Each structure stands twice: as structure tokens, then as C-alpha cells.
């Protein structure tokens, strides 16, 4: 299976499970969870089912394209099932079958792993899923998002696509992954990995990034003051990415670090509160429709 066949198989499988197949959200982010399709939709009483690929940028993990396992940007396949159905584990195992991984022929384990994202004020309980000893998926039941208790708990499945591809294709270097016949991962990303590494560790203009962080934060607050929530959230994401580059660049001292994280978390909380208010004012439209293969909720 090529990398893109893996994506296509997951898209098809989760579409059959009544998920919206969304497209990657076009603001830089460190994980699929930060997409508004997860972060915001996990809040409130409305149901939601979505699946999407999310290119995730982690400047500190950049390795100039030289490490066989670590990347500046990797790809997550993210699924949100809200509320979490009773058979969610079976659904997950079904998705592995769709990838040609027959659980009977392997050793699949659910090993305790509790997830926490301090910048988002989010945490949940769950597992990392092991396939013959390798972690391939992070599986979480959200408990809190934006420092707000989840009214309707979501199940979040995050597949590490590169890991899975390396397993399926039986290779040891991420850059050898066959994206499609004749084109491998390195052909597409090696230069980008090198340049983003160089940027993150050596070239990033820290003065500019500090200024941007302040400006993004200011803009987010200004928009929140006007109850303009979704654009405000985009600026929170921009703050977070600026912080991540500064952090990789080692420009943020120890004492400042907690402060920066706190600033992002506060913004995330205000966005979460604003979003909840907005949905309430709209009368929770998704509660009134028969959606995601379920019956109408009224």
C-alpha cells in the first residue's frame, strides 16, 4: 500500500462510518487536535463526526531530513466521533482491517496513555494502540477542552500515518516511504525538511517572531471582544506556531516559557467560551438535524 492509498483507504472507511471527510485546515499547527474541526467541535452538546489528514508542524522535532524517524512536519490522520459510540474500539479495529492489517494476525494492544495539551487547556484519557509492539495510534476520550469540561465526550483517534506506512511497507527510513509508485517521501519532503530545520534552528528572526506573537495575541483579543470567534482562533493558532519556532530556536528562557504557554492557553479558553456562546445563540443547529447516520435529535 502506498502512502496515498493508506490515506484513501482511511477516507473511504471513515466516510462509511458517517464522518465528514474534511480537508486539512490551512493554518500552521502542531497537531490535528488543534484544527477547529476538533478543538471547537469537541465543545458543547452537538454531535460531530469528522475525519481528515492534518499536516502537523513541530519545529523542535526537525532534524534536517537526516533522522529516519523524526520530522519537522508529519501527517496525522484524525478522527473525531462525538458522542463516542459504544463500539468505538471495534470501529477502530475495522479501520485497521481497511489498511490490510488483520488484527487476528497481529498483536494489538491498548496501552494506557493519557493525553494532555497544556497550551489548549485540554486533556483526556485513553491509550496508545500498539501493533506488534509499535505505537500506531493515539486514542483519547476527551474530558476537557479549552479548560472547559466536555458536555458530550468525544473519542479522538490520531493515526501516525508515517509510522503506519513504514510498517506496511516494511521500511526503516521515513524518507523511503512510497507515496505513490515511483515517488517516495524524500522526493517530496526532503528539501522542505532541511530548509525548515535550518529556519527553525538557525535563521528564524526571533525579534520578528516575538513581535508577531504579541500582535497575533492582540488581534485575537480584539476579535474576541467583538465576538468574532473563528478568526480569533486562527490568531491563537498563529501564536502557538510562533511560540513553537521561538522555542525550537531556544529564544524563550525558562522563566518566560510558562508565561507564553499561559497566554496561549488563556486565549484558547476565551475562544472556547466564545464558541460555546455562539452555538447556544444559534440554538445548537446540529442538534436539530438527522446527522452522522443518527436520528434527528428533537
Amino acid at each position, binding site marked *: 500500500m502506498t502512502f496515498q492509498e493508506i490515506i484513501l483507504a482511511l477516507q473511504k472507511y471513515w466516510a462509511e462510518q458517517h464522518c465528514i471527510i474534511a480537508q486539512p485546515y490551512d493554518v500552521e499547527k502542531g497537531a490535528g487536535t488543534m484544527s477547529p474541526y476538533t478543538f471547537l467541535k469537541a465543545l458543547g452538546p452537538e454531535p460531530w463526526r469528522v475525519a481528515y489528514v492534518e499536516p502537523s508542524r513541530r519545529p523542535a522535532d526537525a532534524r534536517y531530513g537526516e*533522522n*529516519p*524517524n523524526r520530522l519537522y512536519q508529519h501527517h496525522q490522520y484524525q478522527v473525531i466521533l462525538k*458522542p*463516542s459510540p*459504544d463500539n468505538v*474500539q471495534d470501529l477502530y*479495529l475495522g479501520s485497521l482491517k481497511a489498511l490490510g492489517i488483520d*488484527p*487476528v*494476525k*497481529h*498483536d*494489538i*494492544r*491498548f*496501552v*494506557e496513555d*493519557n493525553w494532555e495539551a497544556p497550551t489548549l487547556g485540554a486533556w*483526556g*484519557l485513553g*491509550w496508545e494502540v500498539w*501493533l*506488534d*509492539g*509499535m505505537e500506531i495510534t493515539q486514542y483519547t*476520550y476527551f*474530558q476537557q477542552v479549552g479548560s472547559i469540561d*466536555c458536555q*458530550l*465526550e468525544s473519542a479522538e483517534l490520531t493515526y501516525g500515518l508515517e509510522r503506519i506506512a513504514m*510498517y506496511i511497507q516494511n521500511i*526503516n527510513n521515513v524518507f523511503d516511504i512510497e507515496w505513490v509508485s515511483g515517488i517516495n517521501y524524500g522526493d517530496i519532503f526532503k528539501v522542505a525538511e532541511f530548509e525548515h530545520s535550518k529556519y527553525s534552528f538557525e535563521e528564524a528572526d526571533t525579534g520578528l517572531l516575538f513581535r508577531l506573537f504579541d500582535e497575533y495575541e492582540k488581534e485575537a483579543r480584539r476579535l474576541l471582544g467583538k465576538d468574532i470567534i473563528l478568526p480569533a482562533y486562527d490568531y491563537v493558532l498563529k501564536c502557538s506556531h510562533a511560540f513553537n519556532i521561538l522555542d525550537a530556536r*531556544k529564544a524563550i*528562557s*525558562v*522563566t518566560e*516559557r*510558562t508565561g507564553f504557554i499561559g497566554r496561549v492557553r488563556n486565549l484558547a479558553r476565551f475562544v472556547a467560551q466564545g464558541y460555546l456562546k455562539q452555538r447556544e445563540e444559534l440554538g445548537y443547529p446540529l442538534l436539530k438535524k438527522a446527522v452522522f447516520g443518527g436520528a434527528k435529535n428533537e
Partner: protein
Amino acid sequence: MNKDLVFEIGTEEIPARYMPATLEKVKDIAVSMITENRIDFGEIKTYGTPRRIVLLVKGIAEKQRDLEELIKGPSMKAAYDESGNPSKALLGFLKGQKVELHEVFLQELSGVEYIYCRKQKKGQPSKEVLKEILPGILTSISFPKSMKWGNKSFRFARPVRWLLPILGDELIEFEKDGITCSKYTKGHRVLSQGIIEINDTSEYFEKLRKGYVIVDQEERRSLIRKQCVELARDNGGEVLMDEELLEEIVYLVEYPTALLGVFETEYLKLPKEVVITPMKEHQRYFPVVDKNNKLMNYFITVRNGDNRFIETVREGNERVLRARLADADFFYREDRKNSLESCVEKLKNVVFQETLGTIYDKTQRIIAISEYLAEAAGLSHESRKYLQRAAYLCKADLVTNMVKEFDELQGVMGREYALLQGEKQEVADAILEHYMPRYAGDCTPKTLNGSILSISDKIDTICGCYAIGIQPTGSQDPYALRRQAIGIISIMLKCKIHIGLEQLCNISLEPFEKRNILKGDKKTVKAEVIEFFRQRFRNVMMDRGFGYDIIDAATSVGFDDIYDLFLRIRELSEWKYKSEFSGILGSFNRVTNLASKALSPDMNPEFFTEKAELELLRAFDRVNAEYEGYVDKREYGKALKLLITLEKPIDDFFDNIMVMAEDADIRNNRLGLLKSIANMMYRIADLSLIVVNKI
């Protein structure tokens, strides 16, 4: 007829580390709830796998025991009117309780007579009562961390997906927040197809076994152990069995099958711990060693399933370990490009605690404290040089790639890299040892330098946390201060060093005082730390089998030098069980009682007139200097022996002398003598606190 109960709570995978305590708790809850409900039962057991918590109660009685209840009505005064006829209140009571007038009687309650009636409460069928009890058990189970899901009113470690409560051949039906009961359970997640019907409790274990689930954790444990031992032996080695890891694996699999994997021999060139850590901590593999206890290029993992497709599982696991070892190898090579020295500088970027500063700051404090301790322990000039160097380098490995990836290797890598860079063995060992003891039951440092460094690091953490008000409360102890205090105590006892806690705290609190971050005044904080140590010390001593009375007797006269306290406690314990000693306790009790009335221990020999008091004075003068000498040399056995010689003169004194004489000079003189004797005793302990066991 008595029946057996099986109550299976089907769940998604519960964290393995929760299970042992959870199974104990479920048993306790069940025992108390069933007993409270007056149901007789026989043996009770709990079982657990990743996907189920099982309660087995044998011999449940068919019905609850009957209960006779006394029900209180109105007072006699209120129950009858002036002409002696039942009042409205009494009639209401009769009606409410459905009893006749002749069935009620009077009984007194705190001096007032009340109307009472007796009511028989017939025992209900156990099956009915269990409908109430079982949901109660389900919702009473608590976990270290629990979650909400699907709008349930209770929390659980992971979602509960089914309930199977069977009493004999009957299903007990109830519903809890939409989770219903049925006669169906599930077998192994992938090996068992569909659902399994349980028609009678007697079928439960065997039917699940056919569904690839071994319910009994002890059976799984011995199976895993046997398989691992055999696999290793068949390959010419011996499995490094780790009971803690085994326990975790027991609760990670429902149907264990061990398999042996191989990795490249080149990785055996890495330090042993570097190979073992990813195996054990990250992959839950058992290492294998040869006859000479040298690591072999094998690992044993336990899959959740049977032998089918085991080659695929082996290959997968081998690949994962290979990648991990390749990482470790890479880190090892990378780390060696930089000196530990250069790592120290980087510690300025690692926070120890927000207010307390960086690890670099902590290192500076450790250096200062260890210098003080070196002085106190009388270390040689050369040793002190090594200690200083070790103190400077002890946290450096925290910023190496290896420790960032495998934090369990802190200290281990510090030692390794130090040796590779030509540091002295003494320095390297102290770096490793300063983390010891790392957990309850771990060894203490072997070298004196390691011991001093360990005490310095730990006392800095304790004093730092207390300085800013982070104290352990209840189960909350985020900086593991209790473990660290116990560590310090164990080290002091092990190396037999005399260190005053008071002065140690002074030194340790100083930097926080200078930086003005003490939350209270230094004296109060210090007192809190010392009290904290006193509690830990008491526990440590009691764990070692010393009586609380002896510990209190010794600590009540001062709590400072821990090893010295231990010496006194040990000596007192030995003495306590000798009859000659127990006799004197009564005598000393009388001494301390009166001594507390004395203004001072001063006396004037001129005022002693009676024979018995002169005898006691003489006896005191005779032994005092020698006694002080023994105490100074900490020869407490000999000192106590001398003390005992005072028993007879003391008894004679009390038999013949009226201490509280009218004449103030004479009275104060006698009290002064008693006070002097008491003070003498207090140099070892307050003997009046020792409880004499009458046999």
C-alpha cells in the same frame, strides 16, 4: 440453597497499573456491602484482565437474615392524655407502624420513657437485594484517574461496556445509566468470535477459557513466568525476571503467549542499562542474560493471543526494538561529542521549579550543602575534591539526548559519560548514586561521597518546597518529598554519620532566605521541615520493628542527630525487655513528675539532712561524671547500666522523704536533686514515656 455469584464488569482496557489495587478494593467493597445487607456468604475472590473486573462470591444464602427493629414512638408524656387515654400522637404512631396498642411497650432513653414497638423485617431473597448492591459496587470503585463518558452519572477508569451478574443459574437484572445486564460476555478481543453465553456461574471460567481468556490473574502470572523461563533456557540463557514488569504484563494480556526475539549483537556494545531500558520501560520486554550474567541479544515479549502468526508478531517487535536501539546508539554517539562540563551550562535552561529556579541553580545549592556535609563528616582533602566535582556534574546528564529520551537513565548516563571523559571513578559513582534510593526499597549509595551528594540533593528539594509552601498533603506529594526524607534517613543510618538536622536545614534554607522567597519566617519553615522529618523517622523506625513508645521517648528529648537517635532507640529497645530495666521505669516516673516542679537543678549540700536524700545525692555524684562520659562517647548501653544503679536510692528516697517540705530551701533542694537526675536521664530519653508490658 446457597448459590455462587459471578459479577463481571466488562470494560475497555483498564490501565494495568490500576488493577492490583482495584481488585483489592472491589473485594473490600463487596464484603462490606453484602455483610451490611445481612446476606451470608462463603469465600470471596476478585479477578481481573484488561477487559474485565470479576467478583466471585461463593455460597450466597438464599435470603437475607431477618432483622428485628426497635422503632421509637412518642414519649410517654405525649402518648397519653390526662385521663390515660392514647393521645393523637400515639394513635398516629400505631397507624403509621401498623401495630396494635397491646404490641407497644415503654423503654427509657436518657432518662425519658418512650413508646416503642418491635418490627420484624423479613429477609428478602438475596437475588432481589443484589439488584441494589451490585450497581452500588460498580459505582463505588474509584481509580487514580477516572473518566466520564456517554452522559453517565458515575466515573470509571475506562468505559464500562457490559455487565454480567449471574447468581447460580439466574441472571440478576438491573440497569445503570443505560448499561444493562445480560447473560452474555465477550471473549478475547480478536480471537473469540461473537458473544459467549453464561447460563450458570459454574460455566464461567471454562467458557471464557475457550474464548481465549484466562480470567485468573495468578494462572496468567505463572503461565507467563514458565513460558519465559523455558524460552530463555531453550536458547541457552536465563530470563531477567522483574516482578513489577511481570505484574504489569499480567494485566495487559488475557491469553499470554511468550515469544523470543533477536536483535543485532552490535548493540550489546552499548552500556547494559541503555539496552535494557527501552526493552523494559518502553516495550515491556524481558531481557535475557547468559550464564555469566551478561546480556544476550535476545528479548522476550508476551503477546496477547496464541501461537498463530507468531512470526509476524516477532518480526514486528524486532523491528520496533531495532529502531529504539538504533536511536539509543545514535544518542550515545551524539552525546559523547559534548563534554558533561558543557552540559552544566545548559542546565540554566531547565526549570527545576518555577520559583526555585533552574536545575543549574539547584546544582549550585547542592554544591554548597555538600561542602558543609563534607566538613561535618570529616572528609579528606582528596575526597572533598571528588565530591565537589561530582556535585558540579551530577545533573549534567539531564540535557543529554539519551536522558531526554529515556529519563529513567538519569544518573546512569551521568556516570557512564563521566567515566568516558576521564573523570575519576569516585566522581562517576557519586553522580550515579546521588539519585539513590530511587524508590521504596531501593539501595542507598555505597560510597560516602554518593551518600553526601544524595542527602544534599534531597534536603535541597525538601527545604525548597517547604520554603515556598509546597508540602505533601494526604495523597498529594508531587515532589515525592516523603520518599526523599525517608531516603535521607536511610542514608544517615546506613553510613552512620552524625549530622544535625537543625544545622542542615539552616544551610539548606539559606539561599531561599537570601532570595527572599521564604513564605514565612525561617524559624517556622525550619520547624515544619523538622517536624516532617520526625514523622518520617517515626515511621521508618516502626517499620524496622521498634516500639512507638521507645521512639517517642528518645525523640522527645530532642530531634536532631538521626543516627544518634537510632543508637539510643536500639539500646533502649534491648533494655526494655530486661526485667531490671522495667523496674526502674516506675522510679523514674516519680522523678520526672516531681522534677517538673523544680525551678532549677541547683542544690546546696548543706540543706540535705535526711539519710535517704544524702544516699541519693551520693549515688548521683558517684555515677554522674562517668555517665556523662559514656553519653558523650555514645556508649548508651554502659550509660543505662549506670543509670539503673540509681533505682534503689531513688526508691528509698521516695519511701522516706517528704519532698514537698514546708521549708522552701529544703523543698527546692530536694526538687533540684530530682531535676538533676531527670536531666541526666534526658540525655538519652524521657524514660517516663516508655510503656511497660506486664507479662
